[in-house]
Structures are given as structure tokens and as C-alpha cells.
């Protein structure tokens, strides 16, 4: 097909991978005269094997979007933006940052790293490097929305934030999937090509897939669906672990051989009352018990939880319990169980070398929240801007981030970002966030720069290596993020690198590109060519010559625990005071819901949306898609809500409006709403799509987020819903 396409279009086929979501699907681009005329799935890609979704295929529209920012923009006093040259923009940014440093110190400059940097190793390393060079604790990111719990547990259990085992779906007999919708999301913290087919394959070979979710999701519809109240997951996991220890179903040998501190596990869940767990989850004691027994009895099994299990007030405890269940049933590091990936680039060693990996080495200035992966959580951002004193946040660079939509208590983020002395945004669009910036600087898109999937390559079900050249050159006045960050850094006298000796080299005028560091780590790493000593090994040059990717193995490795655990004793550490404290906090939490806000809100992922963007692509907005609140027919009936009615959704923190979709896809007592709507700024189609900001309903109070990590709480938010007509009459 691609051969015929090339003939018809007179174009050239180029292989690459999709930089939109964690599936990182292999793609083939047809390029004609410097333009990408189409993107198609690559049937030869080792992991995605010919799969791609409608978002990836539609992406060339972003490149040529009439609303795309194509030159540096300076915000004028009236709020409009005026194009300026790179020199004018960068020099003024440098001058203003120097002024901030002079009056407040380097540590008053902050950085925000948005999700798309996970496919942009140059930006990722430069942003980390800038923070390291500034010695600032104001390093924020989308990670503190839904993944700080993973990073913290990775460090505690396995000794590195990025040491995160994945479920071995190709071989498992029992997949317990909690708060994840892989058929729609295509996987997060797992990277399984053709994930829908792979999951169906588990059932076809006689295994089971149980999907635990408040909503009968597109994934749940295909398998056994176990509805659960939003934020009930931590109770389910703890109760299952208790059943396993009470009934002596644990794998003692595995616990003794692989771990340290396993004797504390039964003590940890001792206080769990199964009857309360049943009330908290909406799942009967009998079903919880049977699920635990079946899970323990399966020849191989893995429990995995993603956003649903990561957006509650006990996200770190929930993630710990997920790993504990896998470990206690002997499923860690065995075929069909909970396995370590085989990354092409050892990001665990890399982040350890850069002193990035870690947990609770320091705490945030205002709220005293433990750092995770060298970062502060977004929950504290508004207070770090508003609270005077040494280290007060005064200037920020936001890279591919939209915290005005995606951050907790987003109204406060929007207000306080405007109080900064300087805000710089690297973004292809004028978004609700970048419109607040003094400068918007246009970065190259993934089609326009060299790429290596630095974040997702550790989670691939089929381990592979890929490094692709730019498919097409960027527009004339558009620059790569790492270059922009380096130029800003130059103007304040630092090198944006966390590598040892980088600042010293910088003083000698040597500023190596991020690709050099990554190539070095690759070449001396487990898959590297050792600079020629290992003939079959990898290097950047070799991979770029094979842009379709190179398969490293047919499946996930097993029996590699001792190589993959970073603790000195090579054992998984299970005994942690912070986990015990979280269990105490859970057990002490009041059981009764707030009668004024009786429903529990949770977030819904949609096929044609990606976090807070992609709503400006015509093809993805067909049929005038709108954001809708899913509500159960009985709840709707009691509240006098008909399908399509505008309703007010109110929490203790704010209120928004959305049309209702009355559907029994959600369980009674819970309501589901997609995030990432309610845009403002210069992306006209996204703005015209309307909708409301989910995060006006959420909080950033340090006692109400995930306490050990500051991770946001977007699920299980107590809300009340009423028809808008009634709401108007009363107010």
C-alpha cells in the first residue's frame, strides 16, 4: 500500500513514531515537497504492528493549523500578541530573568514540564537541566496530576522513580484492570501494541480480564465489568490483600526470596474491615473475597491501575497496594505477571546520574510536601507564587503545558500565573495558559524534530529501540525546544544540563546537545554498542539508519529482579513508615459522604481528545462534539434531569455547567465528565467547542491531595448536580 501511495503522490515514505500518547505507535509519513500529506500506521513496527488511532492519523492538520503560532509573540499591554524576532524575544526574556535573579535569586525561577515532553527527549533533558543549573525547587509538571504516586512507589519499592513493572498481557491468565480504559487511551504506563486485541487474546486462551471502573467503559464492555464507586479502589486493593493474608493464599517463597519487610504487609491491612470496604467500593464482601481468591489462584495474574487509581486522595497507598498484591501472589518478575520492561535507554541509571530520581529528599517551601523525582507538585504552585519570602516563585517557563486547564484548583493557577514578573510559554497555540504569558515561543512539533520515545520505551510489551530523524523541517521561524531553552539559559549564564561537569564545560564554551548525552548513555548501556566493542549493540547513528525501530526481544524479560532493583540488597523494600501512615489516614477517614454534595465525580477519557489539547483539529471535532456529564437514569430522574439538559455541577470549590447525558454506563451515585474542555485563547475551533473547566471543581489544599506526593485529586470529588433552570431560579 505504501509503495502504491508513493507512486500516486510522487512522495517519499518516512518512518517515525507518533508523539501524541504513550502508545507511541509506529507510523509511515508520506512527504511531498516538505509537507506531510499523510500519516499511516506502520505494519512493520515491532510493538504497534500496524495500529494507529484517529488522533495520530489526523496530526498533520496540527502542522498546518491556521491558528498555530509560527513566530515568537510578545504580549502587549492590551492583551494582544505582536510578532517579534527571536533576538528581541530572547534578549528581553534574558534581561527580565536577570532582574528576577538579582532581586530574588535563581531559586525564584520555575519550570513547568508538560506531558508532550515525554516524546521530546531534548526538551525533557534541557528543562531538567535548567532546573538543576538554577538549583530551583520550582520544578513542576503534569506528573503531579496523576503519576507522582507511581514515581514515589517506584523509588520506595525498587529504588528508582522510573522502575515501574508492567502487566505481561501477552502471557497472563488473569488481568485485573483498575481505573483504566486501554481500548480508548491505548495504554498508560503500559505500552502494548494493539492493546484491544491483546486483551481479547487473554480471554481467547481461557484467561480472565476484569475491569474495575465506575463506568461501563469501552474496555469494560468487552470484558467482565466490576463497577466501583469513584475512589473506592484503595479499599478494594487493601481488602483483597487482607483476604489473601487471612486465608494464607500468599506466595511465601516469593515474599521471602524477593523482598525485605514483607512481614509488615499483613500488619498493614490488619485494620481493614471488609464490610466497610464493601460499602466504600459498592462491591459485596463476597465478590471482593472471590476476586482475591481467584487472583491468587490464577497460574499467572497481574493487577494494574492507572488514572482511576491514581487520581484519588490515597493514590500513593493505592499504587503501593497494586504492587503489593502482585508481589504477594508471586507474580512479580514471572511470565504473565508484573514484569520489568527492557528499555533501549536505561532511563533509571540516567535519572540517577542526573540526581533526578528520588523521593522526599526535600520538602516544598510553603506546604512541606515531599519532593518526587526532584519536582514540586502543581497543588502548591499558587501558594508558592503568593507566599513572600526567600525562594518565592517569581518567573516561570512553561513548556508544552496547559495548567490553567489541567491543574488542580485551576482558577487559582490562572490568577497567580498573572502575578509573576515573567511568564514564558513554549507552545504551538495561544491556549488558556499561554495567553497569560509575556512571550509565547513556537516550538517544533514531533514531525519536525529528531525523536526518541524516552518516556514510553521502558513499558513496551515488545521491547524495541527507535530513534528517528525529523520527518520534515519546521516552519521558518519555529525552533526546537532544547534550542530555545539553551538560548534562554545562555542569557542568564547557565548551561541547561544536569550532567556532572556541564556547568564547568559551559564556562569553557562547550555546550553539548542533548542528543550527545542520550547517545552516550545509550551506547554504554545494556543495549549499547560500547563504542564498537559490541557489534550488535545500539547507537543513535545505527537507530537513525533504521527509523522503523529495532526489536530487542519478543516479550518482556523475567527473572531479572536482581538486575532491575536498585536497592543495594537487590530486594524489593516493602516496609515504609509513609505507607503505614497513609493506611492510618485511610482508616481514620470519615465514612459518611457530605449530604450537601452526595454524588462522586470522576473523569472520563475520550477517543478523540488528548489531555488538554487536540480540540483544534477539525477531523477530531466532527459532529460538533461537546463535553457531557454522564449521569445514571435513576439519579437523573430523582433530580429532574432529562438527556441533553444543561446542568450545574457544584463542588465545595466551584461550579460549572455541562449538558447531561443520561446513561446507565455510570453506576448510581457517580457522575463522569471528560477533562480538557472549556478552552480560551487563539485556538478558535477548540474555543468554539465550548465546555467547562473540570478543575474549577477540584482542590489543591495540602491535606486533601495525595498527602505523600501532592498528587492531584480529580476523582471521587463530592458534587451535587441540578438542572440549570432550577439553579437559575434559585440563585
Amino acid at each position, binding site marked *: *500500500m505504501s509503495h502504491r501511495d508513493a507512486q500516486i503522490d510522487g512522495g517519499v515514505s518516512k518512518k517515525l513514531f507518533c508523539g501524541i500518547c504513550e502508545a507511541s505507535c509506529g507510523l509511515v509519513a508520506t512527504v511531498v515537497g516538505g509537507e506531510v500529506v*499523510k*500519516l*499511516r*500506521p506502520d505494519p512493520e513496527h515491532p510493538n504497534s504492528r*500496524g*495500529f*494507529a*488511532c*484517529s488522533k495520530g*492519523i*489526523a496530526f498533520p492538520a496540527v502542522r498546518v493549523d491556521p491558528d498555530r503560532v509560527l513566530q515568537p509573540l510578545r504580549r502587549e499591554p492590551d492583551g494582544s500578541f505582536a510578532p517579534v524576532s527571536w533576538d528581541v524575544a530572547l534578549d528581553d526574556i534574558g534581561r527580565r530573568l536577570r532582574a528576577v535573579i538579582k532581586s530574588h535569586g535563581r531559586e525564584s525561577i520555575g519550570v513547568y514540564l508538560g506531558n508532550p515532553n515525554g516524546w521530546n527527549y531534548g526538551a525533557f533533558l534541557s528543562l531538567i537541566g535548567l532546573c538543576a543549573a538554577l538549583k530551583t525547587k520550582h520544578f513542576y509538571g503534569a506528573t503531579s496530576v496523576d503519576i507522582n504516586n507511581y514515581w514515589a512507589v517506584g523509588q520506595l519499592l525498587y529504588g528508582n522513580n522510573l522502575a515501574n513493572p508492567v502487566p505481561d498481557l501477552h502471557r497472563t491468565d488473569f488481568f485485573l484492570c483498575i481505573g483504566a480504559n486501554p*481500548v480508548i487511551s491505548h495504554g498508560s504506563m503500559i505500552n502494548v501494541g494493539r492493546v*484491544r*486485541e491483546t486483551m481479547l487474546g487473554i480471554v481467547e486462551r481461557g484467561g480472565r480480564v476484569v475491569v474495575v471502573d465506575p463506568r461501563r467503559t*469501552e474496555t469494560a464492555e468487552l470484558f467482565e465489568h466490576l463497577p466501583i464507586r469513584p475512589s473506592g479502589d484503595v479499599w478494594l486493593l487493601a481488602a483483597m490483600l487482607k483476604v489473601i493474608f487471612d486465608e494464607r493464599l500468599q506466595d511465601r517463597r516469593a515474599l521471602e526470596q524477593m523482598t525485605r519487610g514483607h512481614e509488615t504487609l499483613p500488619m498493614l491491612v490488619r485494620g481493614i474491615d471488609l464490610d466497610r470496604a464493601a460499602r466504600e467500593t459498592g462491591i459485596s464482601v463476597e465478590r471482593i473475597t472471590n476476586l482475591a481468591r481467584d487472583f491468587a489462584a490464577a497460574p499467572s495474574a497481574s493487577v494494574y491501575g492507572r488514572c482511576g487509581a491514581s487520581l484519588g486522595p490515597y493514590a500513593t497507598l493505592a499504587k503501593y497496594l497494586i504492587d503489593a498484591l502482585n508481589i504477594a501472589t508471586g507474580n512479580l518478575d514471572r511470565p504473565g505477571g508484573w514484569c520489568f520492561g527492557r528499555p533501549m535507554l536505561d532511563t533509571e541509571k540516567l535519572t540517577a546520574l542526573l540526581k533526578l530520581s528520588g523521593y522526599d529528599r526535600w520538602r516544598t517551601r510553603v506546604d512541606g510536601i515531599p519532593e518526587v523525582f526532584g519536582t514540586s507538585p502543581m497543588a502548591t504552585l499558587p501558594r508558592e507564587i503568593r507566599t513572600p519570602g526567600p525562594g518565592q516563585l517569581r518567573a516561570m517557563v512553561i513548556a508544552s503545558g496547559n495548567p490553567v486547564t489541567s491543574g488542580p484548583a485551576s482558577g487559582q493557577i490562572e490568577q497567580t500565573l498573572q502575578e509573576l514578573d515573567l511568564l514564558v510559554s513554549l507552545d504551538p497555540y495561544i491556549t488558556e495558559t499561554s495567553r497569560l504569558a509575556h512571550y509565547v515561543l513556537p516550538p517544533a512539533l514531533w514531525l519536525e524534530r529528531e525523536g526518541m520515545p524516552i518516556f514510553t520505551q521502558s513499558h513496551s510489551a515488545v521491547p524495541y529501540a527507535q530513534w528517528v530523524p525529523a520527518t520534515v523541517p519546521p516552519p521558518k521561524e519555529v525552533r526546537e525546544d532544547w534550542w530555545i531553552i539553551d538560548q534562554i539559559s545562555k542569557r542568564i549564564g547557565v548551561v541547561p544540563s544536569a550532567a556532572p561537569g556541564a556547568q564547568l564545560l559551559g564556562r569553557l564554551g562547550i555546550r553539548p546537545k542533548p542528543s550527545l548525552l542520550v547517545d552516550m548513555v545509550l551506547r554504554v548501556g545494556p543495549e549499547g554498542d560500547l563504542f564498537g566493542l559490541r557489534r550488535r549493540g545500539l547507537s543513535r547513528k545505527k537507530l537513525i539508519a533504521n527509523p522503523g525501530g529495532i526489536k530487542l526481544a519478543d516479550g518482556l524479560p523475567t527473572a531479572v529482579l536482581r538486575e532491575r532493583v536498585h536497592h543495594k540488597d537487590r530486594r524489593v523494600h516493602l516496609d515504609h513508615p509513609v505507607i503505614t501512615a497513609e493506611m492510618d489516614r485511610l482508616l481514620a477517614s470519615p465514612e459518611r459522604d457530605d449530604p450537601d454534595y452526595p454524588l462522586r465525580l470522576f473523569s472520563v477519557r*475520550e*477517543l*478523540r481528545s488528548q489531555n488538554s489539547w487536540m480540540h483544534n483539529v477539525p*477531523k477530531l471535532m*466532527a*459532529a460538533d*462534539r461537546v463535553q457531557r456529564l454522564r449521569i445514571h437514569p435513576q439519579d437523573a430522574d430523582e433530580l429532574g434531569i432529562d438527556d441533553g439538559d444543561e446542568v450545574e455541577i457544584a463542588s465545595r470549590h466551584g461550579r460549572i455547567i455541562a449538558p447531561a447525558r443520561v446513561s446507565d454506563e455510570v453506576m448510581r451515585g457517580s457522575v463522569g465528565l471528560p477533562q480538557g474542555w472549556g478552552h480560551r485563547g487563539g485556538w478558535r475551533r477548540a474555543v468554539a467547542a465550548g465546555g467547562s473547566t473540570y478543575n474549577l471543581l477540584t482542590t489543591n489544599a495540602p491535606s486533601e491531595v495525595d498527602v505523600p506526593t501532592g498528587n492531584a485529586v480529580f476523582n471521587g470529588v463530592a458534587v451535587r448536580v441540578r438542572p440549570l433552570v432550577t439553579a437559575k431560579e434559585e440563585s
Partner: protein
Amino acid sequence: MPYVIAAPCVADYSCVEVCPVDCIHPTPDEAGFEQAEQMYINPAECIDCEACVEACPVDAIFAADELPERWLQYAEINIGYFESNGRG
């Protein structure tokens, strides 16, 4: 012999746009489009023009008698969509 949409479909709906007889559903303005994981061809209306095959970005559409072995059941799946939606 009508055409059939099989497993690779990503509901990109390029086929819907090119179909001269509007036999591919759900269309973007129909209920169920937002959740649709794939599109379906109504065999009673398909005129075998092959326009959708050309338009499909993921090579998901086949003549019914040329369906790959592993996706044979999709002929029934396409028919089933119209029966259950009362459009047959």
C-alpha cells in the same frame, strides 16, 4: 459482494465522507458516534464502488469474499450493527 469493515478500523470516518450512498455508519451526526470504536457498512446498501477502501487510512476495509481469515467474523459484525440499530 459488499465491503466489510474489519478490526483495524479506528473510526476515523474518512470512509463515511467518501461513500456515495451513505451506507457507512454511525455518521458523525448520529448517536453513538462518539463511542464508536469502528464504523460499519450496511451490506444491503453497499454498491461495491470501493471508494472507502481507497480512503481508509488503516487498510481496514475488504470485499466480503476477501476478508482475511482472522477477521471473517466481521461480516456478521457489520450486519449485526444494522440489525441491532433497526436500520437493516
